[in-house]
């Protein structure tokens, strides 16, 4: 079945630095979303992409359906960026597959 491999599973960054999260897909996906889980367990939708790249503040995401991957870049990381980030992608409208999450810790 459809699979999403998300990496890394955990990441520590010092304030002001940056890094990238990545999701690889085993099949061609129609669109990808990136979420951050807040303290209540609610998933905050960061990006929705059907193709190309999107940027929002210090976050930038890219999605290549043909090459079957998506990335989330964080630059100038701040303490409040700490949390768990998920990608999710769907190959059809009835099924969405989530990555296993990346636990990001931003250190002073």
């Amino acid at each position, binding site marked *: 079945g459809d699979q999403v491999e998300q990496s890394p*599973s955990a990441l520590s960054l010092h304030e002001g630095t940056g890094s990238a999260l990545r999701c690889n897909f085993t099949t061609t996906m129609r669109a990808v*979303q990136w*979420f951050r*889980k*807040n*303290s*209540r*367990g*609610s*998933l*905050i*939708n960061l990006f929705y992409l059907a193709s190309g790249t999107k940027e929002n503040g210090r976050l930038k995401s890219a999605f290549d359906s043909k090459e079957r991957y998506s990335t989330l870049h964080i630059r100038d990381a701040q303490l409040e960026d*700490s*949390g*768990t980030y*998920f990608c*999710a992608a769907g190959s059809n*409208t*009835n*099924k*969405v*597959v*989530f990555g*296993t*999450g990346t*636990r990001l*810790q931003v250190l002073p």
Partner: protein
Amino acid sequence: GPKVLQIPSHQIIDMGQMVTLNCDPVSNHLYFYWYKQILGQQMEFLVNFYNGKVMEKSKLFKDQFSVERPDGSYFTLKIQPTALEDSAVYFCASSLGQGDNERLFFGHGTKLSVL
């Protein structure tokens, strides 16, 4: 890896009827969640559940909604009666613990169509 199963993947019902969405969480997990995503909108938290009780629920968790997990079986979301605005994809998730960095494992979603 650990899997959360949701049954059925698609459910079509008439407005006013009752519906039960079933979730088979990861076997050793202790915390269970339901999320709702209306087409084209952000996924929204509905409720989380631990030790047989609702721990927290959002304003989207209407009085017509209820959750339970009798005797370690399916974690269910029941809507009675259903309304047109309940049409959405409902995602179940489970986790071993709780906290900002606890990993959630999600099911693939159940698409509910209320006619």
